[in-house]
């Protein structure tokens, strides 16, 4: 992961939803918690 730069070089970039991990890449019913 060669993205790490020294603090003074880092500039916040915009959030790109296409690059973001979500377990379910589709609309899902709210069943994300399985408890009892």
């Amino acid at each position, binding site marked *: *992961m060669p*993205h*790490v730069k020294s*603090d003074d070089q*880092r*500039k*916040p*970039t*915009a*959030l*790109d939803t296409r*690059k*973001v*991990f979500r*377990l*379910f*890449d*589709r*609309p*899902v*019913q*709210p*069943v*994300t*918690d*399985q*408890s*009892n």
Partner: protein
Amino acid sequence: MSTASVDLFSVEPDRARAEAVARPIDVRLRESFEHLFDVAGSRLGDTREIADWLASGVPLRGMAHVVHAQLLSALELEDEYLLARVADAIAQWPGEHGSLMVTSLFGGDRPYVLDTLYFDVCDEGSRRTYGHFLDADPLSDDERLVSKPALQKAVRRWARVDPDGYAEASALISELILVHSDTSNAGSSAAALGLVRISHLKPGQGWSRYFEALAHEAGHQVLNLLLSADPMIENDQERLYGSPLRQEQRPLTAILHAGFVLARTLRAIRRLEADSLYDPATDEVVSAYNNARNEASFAAKFEDCRATLATHAQFTGQGQRFFDALPGLAYDA
């Protein structure tokens, strides 16, 4: 290992399958971390150590999912307080995870801020799924003295009687987190993949209650991975149905979860009872998953799920094959 020889949608426990399904999730999670670190910039502090760990290619389980989920929430909501907590967690995060480790919530097993991030992720899932806050507190010292060795015994017995189930879970679950909870039994959250929370033993309960929980929760962990690869049910959004495990009505994917974990439980109990160490006087598994106040047998609950799914679910190809294999898992495997 090539995935060509692995049946990704097998219902039976399979460590190689679990690793094969988890691998692309790890890649996506690693790339997402990289992007989120760029988005957060210097607000996260020094991320070099954890970035190196992520880049090393180790499997990412448990707290890695929690930290990612909270980092994503902080950036989406522009929540600087949450972002500061994530930065604190990253600074202290040991950057490693174990396998089926028995730990406790707020019990000093990890940096305190990680406990708070885990609790909040599960609380959010609980409120979104069931409409109520998460009921999970720290164990008392007395509860820890009783519950921890009981859970460790259940893990050892599981490894003895069901080595395939144990091996699969070892690849997926980093921690079994004991909590004090008077109203909940055990749970898994999709935003905290690899972490299972289990409540303290109540009077009259023994280690076999935890044996059921291991088979049950490991099933949820596996199915969450499979559902990320294929939705299995195409009409999940349409309406809700009765569940033998819950009081409230549930979507079809949740009924599939219930049917699958019940089939896995039937399989594990069959192995437990066939083992020479099994003592029916002390080791019988009486279901502790009783939110629905349903006294029916495991098999009857399984058949309840199967009937609902057979009548109402429109399966994908993989979903149909998976569903058709469930009776074999429940009764023969």
